[in-house]
């Protein structure tokens, strides 16, 4: 947050650099089951983000000491491709991706009926091919679709969005410039029906009022994004599309 810049992020009409209003989402597209080998998969385009998610499992948890005798362990691995960002990123996990993998695993765990699969693990591989701000939320939103497409029982879908603050104004779904030069970043993911928060992080500077405004924006947006998730699944699995020789 808060690198200095001279870029003006909002024009005099309150419009954003990419022409969006403060409450407007970037275009989102989700597809399922593009990968042959995985038990389930999903692909998401969210603004300039391009992310593929693959799910394997439930399968026996390995190494053995990671097994939980009461439930399955969800192991998400968030990974950014070396070429996904402006400056080449050194391949492999860094501290940021370890933290993101942890909070994504925990968020998915609250939606998946993990108690049905003691001693098992569910692997969720999130590969960011191109990054354009909001990758953890886009990845998690796609991961939820991928888990569902793997036929793993879930109580609810996980859906998320970010909000933030630029030039003192609360805006939805930060772009890359807004993420880099804005004053706050607030990613939130909820269970789509109950609206319970399963992921929340924040850095920057928000007052209580700004937080409330941001979280209301996010909550409203998650309804739309959940609809896109549902369409991705139903268009792939509706009766008309089954048995079409694929």
């Amino acid at each position, binding site marked *: 947050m808060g690198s200095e810049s001279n870029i003006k992020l909002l024009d005099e009409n309150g419009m954003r650099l990419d022409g969006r209003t403060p409450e407007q989402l970037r275009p989102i597209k989700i597809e399922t089951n593009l990968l042959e080998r995985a038990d389930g998969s999903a692909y998401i385009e969210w603004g300039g983000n391009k992310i593929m998610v693959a799910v394997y499992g439930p399968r026996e948890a390995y190494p053995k000491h990671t097994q939980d005798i009461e439930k399955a362990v969800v192991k998400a691995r968030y990974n950014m491709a070396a070429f996904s960002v402006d400056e080449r990123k050194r391949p492999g996990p860094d501290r940021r991706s370890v*933290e993101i993998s*942890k909070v994504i695993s925990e968020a998915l765990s609250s939606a998946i009926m993990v108690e049905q699969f003691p001693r098992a693990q569910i692997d969720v591989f999130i590969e960011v091919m191109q990054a354009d701000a909001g990758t953890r939320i886009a990845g998690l939103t796609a991961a939820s679709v991928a888990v569902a497409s793997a036929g793993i029982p879930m109580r609810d879908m996980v859906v998320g969005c970010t909000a933030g603050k630029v030039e003192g104004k609360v805006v939805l779904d930060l772009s890359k410039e807004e993420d880099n030069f804005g004053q706050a970043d607030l990613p939130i993911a909820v269970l789509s029906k109950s609206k319970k*928060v399963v992921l*929340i992080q924040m850095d920057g500077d928000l007052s*209580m009022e700004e937080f409330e405004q941001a*979280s209301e924006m996010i909550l409203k947006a998650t309804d739309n994004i959940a609809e896109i998730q549902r369409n991705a699944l139903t268009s792939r699995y509706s009766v008309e599309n089954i048995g079409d020789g694929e």
Partner: protein
Amino acid sequence: MPRDALGVLSEIKRSFITKQLKEGKRGDGRGLQDFREATITTNYVPRAAGSAMVKLGRTRVLAGVKIESGEPFPDTPNSGVLTTNVELLPMAFPTFEAGPPNETSIEIARVVDRGIRESKMIDTQKLVIEPGKKVWIVFVDINIMDFDGNLIDACTLAAVSALRSAFIPASREGGKDMPLPVDQIPISVTMVKIGDDLVCDPDLEEEQLGSARITVTTTEDGHIRAMQKGDTGSFTFDEIKKAIKISSDTGATLRKKYFS
């Protein structure tokens, strides 16, 4: 809570703590929003540029600051650098193992780091020796010595105390040693959800019982500077707003108690 520490809480203890909480009581007599008593010993390690041993109840952490000159990051040529690292020492808990940072220690370090960074506690612009070429790099290393819950708050308390006691060894660069310029005092407040209650500064047993954890770091103006939810449970939005309120209130109390 470190995953290693799971599953050692007996059923009898579990139901006892839950029953007590229903009456608004906790095992050690605290109210739901009370912190354990903290003792902060600054300059514990005089060899460091700044240091603090913090005991929060029976949790004990030691933060040490080292300040060295080095190159700035290419994208922030006119700013000093802050790096925070946490080590879960094997002495602190039976199942902690020596080795490279794991997801638990990385998460703690990054949440502590965000609170300090986003509160603008340190004015990194004042840490420039030669613009674009040479800046002061502030290393905050935190060792976990004894673990009885709530490492994030103990570590924030220790890091903030150590930074406030730190000096820049400018004599090495031909200047004069000077105190590290610090301003805001970020205070992190961590709560776990047990049943429908938010319990502040959880000890180990309460952490094991909690379904979800939330940390909110605030500054004196009551603004939120960092937040992090952990564990596999969930919060309602009302609970999160409540957590923010509790954090800014409790933060104000702690700031006054330990830093004025």
